[in-house]
């Protein structure tokens, strides 16, 4: 037995010496710019690649949202630019199926190419090794491959626009039979196939990333960095990666089956004898409803994949700018874990209207409502962190506060939707559109802004302009609410989503609903224009911003202990960690913060075993 132990130990010992898994070996930096900046294995460069491509697609998805809002406010009136470019032969009128393409690709691009890659891909990559005190990810080359899966997704998604029939139009949820039968819509002819390939590649990217993140966090922590000393950002990424590792493969299998249904003629999601548009009947025998189960088994956890990293990062930002310890560190960790765990058993709440057995529906309703508990713990703990703190209203902090407040609204409308009877009433209305945007824009996107303002100095070594940042936040906050709050009202009034022209219903053709739709559209244009401020600030600061100090925010986590931007090996010497990241305003410490690398003075007393 002891022989075996020695063997195993020896193997890891030689591995460390030869392959640099140990902490003291620094790889030489590649001299070729192609490998230094393009096919880089440096987690910081990969993070920036994820960030830039995500922001570029944020513009693409955002412009599609503008077109959607134009159509909803002034149905069928010629659209600027697009009408002239595409529909001059059809009287400058948008064809109805184009609206379906717009909302399908707006959702798909924003979810699969923007929010997940930026939150998990960009900030996960950037923060994990720096915050745990490692030189890089556990598998730098795997990390590179995980980014370079994304361009395949980009090309497939963009290519879907130019194939015959145009891009997909079955919604981001891609329900069969609409998505399965090639003749059901123009977009189902070819575009849907490319959509599936695109999402498959984005999924493989996330999958490889999640395995890498989990291994890195488990294996490469600096000395003294116990699991319960990890910053919340890393905890958020860790639990997100668990969700991705266990939920995403199921979506992959479902995507593969739909792809085979469309290309190899299999019958998984095609009902027996289905005939579309007087075409020949399919053999079929499969079940369209099965797709919904498989899809939501991933895509419900996916909404937590899009919010848990944000929650982690906001915890760090709020604590830093409140100059106070995070209120209830361990409860926050457990709450994230509880949200993730419950996230696996609630997918049926997307399907209350699918003819589900009421007993099953009630189970899903109960488990969904339970998520309100850990979510409320998190919200109250953020408020508790800010309460009585000396809050510094930086752009990052303002966006983090925007995140918390908008997440409360999105969370509360979520409880409405969790209740089966209410959900049956508002299913497929603008109420659900309001809900998802309060969580995904009000939540995740404000978090992305906050994280960019916060880590920009560390990423690029320059400061962003705070004044522009504050103006950007104020305008975004106003126009965001102007765009999405009224959706609750028109939704409860019965306005259906995914409908190109609501005014065909007399109920929705009154001055109230039409006026609100026009107001929402104008706000959306304002929201879009406001982002020019952000882009200008981002690009200007990238080149001409004032040089950033190593620790401009006086934060405690490890990344602020190295230079801005960090050298490619991150740390001159691997730091030693003495306590969790939230030791602000500790009694007996000069200055109001205590980096994780400095021991607590004895006068500060023992740490609270539960709350810290």
């Amino acid at each position, binding site marked *: 037995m*002891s*022989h075996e132990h*020695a*063997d195993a*130990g*020896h*193997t*890891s*010992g*030689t*591995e460390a010496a030869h392959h640099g*898994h140990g902490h003291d070996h620094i790889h030489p930096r590649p001299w070729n710019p192609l490998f230094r900046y393009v096919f880089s294995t440096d987690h910081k460069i990969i993070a920036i690649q994820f960030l830039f491509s995500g922001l570029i697609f944020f513009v693409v998805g955002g412009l599609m949202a503008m077109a959607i809002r134009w159509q909803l406010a002034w149905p069928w009136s010629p659209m600027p630019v697009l009408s002239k470019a595409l529909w001059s032969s059809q009287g400058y009128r948008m064809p109805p199926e184009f609206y379906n393409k717009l909302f399908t690709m707006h959702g798909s691009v924003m979810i699969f190419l923007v929010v997940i890659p930026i939150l998990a891909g960009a900030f996960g990559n950037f923060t994990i090794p720096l915050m745990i005190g490692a030189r890089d990810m*556990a*598998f730098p080359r795997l990390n590179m491959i995980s980014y370079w899966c994304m361009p395949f997704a980009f090309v497939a998604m963009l290519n879907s626009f130019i194939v015959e029939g145009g891009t997909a139009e079955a919604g981001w949820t891609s329900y069969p039979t609409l998505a399965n039968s090639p003749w059901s819509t123009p977009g189902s002819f070819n575009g849907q196939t490319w959509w599936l390939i695109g999402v498959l590649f984005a999924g493989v990217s996330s*999958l490889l990333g*999640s*395995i*890498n993140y*989990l*291994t*890195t966090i*488990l*294996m*490469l922590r600096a*000395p003294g960095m116990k699991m319960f000393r990890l910053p919340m950002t890393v905890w958020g990424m860790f639990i997100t990666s668990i969700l991705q*590792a*266990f*939920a*995403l*493969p*199921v*979506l*992959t*299998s*479902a995507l*593969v*089956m739909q792809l*085979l249904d469309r290309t*190899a*003629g*299999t*019958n*998984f999601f095609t009902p*027996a*004898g289905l005939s579309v548009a007087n075409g020949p009947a399919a*053999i*079929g*025998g*499969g*079940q369209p409803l*099965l797709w919904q*189960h*498989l899809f939501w088994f991933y895509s419900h956890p996916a909404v937590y994949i899009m919010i848990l990293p944000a929650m982690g990062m906001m915890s760090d930002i709020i604590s830093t700018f409140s100059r106070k310890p995070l209120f209830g560190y361990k409860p926050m960790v457990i709450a994230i874990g509880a949200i993730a765990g419950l996230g696996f058993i609630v997918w049926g709440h997307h399907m209350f209207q699918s003819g589900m057995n009421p007993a099953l529906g009630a189970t899903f309703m109960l488990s969904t409502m339970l998520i309100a508990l850990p979510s409320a713990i998190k919200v109250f703990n953020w408020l508790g962190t800010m309460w009585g703190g000396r809050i510094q209203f930086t752009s990052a902090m303002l966006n983090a506060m925007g995140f918390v407040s908008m997440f409360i609204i999105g969370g509360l409308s979520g409880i409405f939707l969790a209740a089966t009877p209410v959900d049956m009433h508002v299913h497929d209305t603008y109420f659900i559109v309001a809900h998802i945007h309060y969580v995904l824009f009000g939540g995740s996107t404000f978090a992305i802004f906050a994280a960019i303002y916060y880590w920009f100095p560390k990423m690029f070594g320059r400061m962003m302009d705070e004044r522009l940042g504050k103006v950007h936040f104020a305008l975004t906050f106003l126009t965001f609410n102007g765009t999405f709050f009224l959706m609750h009202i028109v939704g409860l009034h019965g306005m259906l989503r995914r409908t190109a022209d609501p005014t065909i219903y007399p109920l929705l053709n009154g001055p109230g609903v039409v006026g609100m739709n026009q107001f929402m559209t104008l706000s959306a244009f304002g929201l879009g224009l406001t982002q020019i401020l952000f882009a200008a600030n981002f690009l200007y600061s990238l080149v001409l911003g004032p040089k950033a100090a190593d620790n401009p925010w006086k934060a405690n986590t490890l990344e602020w202990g190295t230079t801005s931007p960090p050298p490619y090996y991150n740390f001159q010497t691997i730091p030693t960690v003495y306590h969790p990241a939230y030791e602000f305003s500790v009694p007996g410490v000069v200055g109001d913060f205590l980096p994780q690398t400095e021991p607590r003075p004895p006068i500060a007393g023992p740490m609270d075993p539960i709350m810290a």
Partner: protein
Amino acid sequence: MADAATFPAHPTTAHGSMARPTVQAPPLTPGKVAIWLFLATEIMFFTGLIGTYIVLRAGSPPTGYSNLYPPATDLTYVLPTKPEGLKTYAWPKPYDDSTNPLSIDLTAVNTFILICSSVTMVLGLSAFQRDQKRKGALYTTATALIGAVFLGVQVFEYRQLMFVHHYPIGVSASGHFTPDVSLFASCFFTMTGFHGAHVAGGVIAMSLLAIRSWFGAYSSTNYNSVEIVGLYWHFVDLVWIILFTVVYLI
């Protein structure tokens, strides 16, 4: 035992070998953690496929397959006339030639072959662990070859099903068993096809191991890659046992 001497001794306490070493040595290598996580994702992927199979099979109507009509034919107007000799099934029965084209005997042999490759894999790893490099190289090569034989038999089976044999109407309206002819065919080809792709990946990895092992790359101090590929190989083997059971035998 010789290599144990070269290993830097852990500073241990005086309480004997049961005391924990004070050095913070990771109990596992990152590669092993990652392969277990990867296998977890693979389990979820195959759970998606196998779960789909179970749900679709359970939801198949009692008249989904019959000996006189192609699969998924609507028999609503046929059944009241009580046609002579008509037998209907919810799902093709094993060894029932009128609805099930699969050659269970051939695949049973193939299953045995694949299990043998897991045995040679274990023997190869333990040979490396005991520094028997030549023996290890032989077993690794044997594993790659046996895996290739399994794939060959599967390709032969696919060819028979899709192009060579002509099957009764209860199997397929076209006479050939291709992925589009019935739900059973869709499930069969997708599940076994993805498993075959995994075996193919494993054979490639195993061949690389075999080539390197002939140059003496693995020894009692360096068998990490063999162990990692081995874990994957056993996983693929295990999945096949489940697939063989649910697709062919039940």
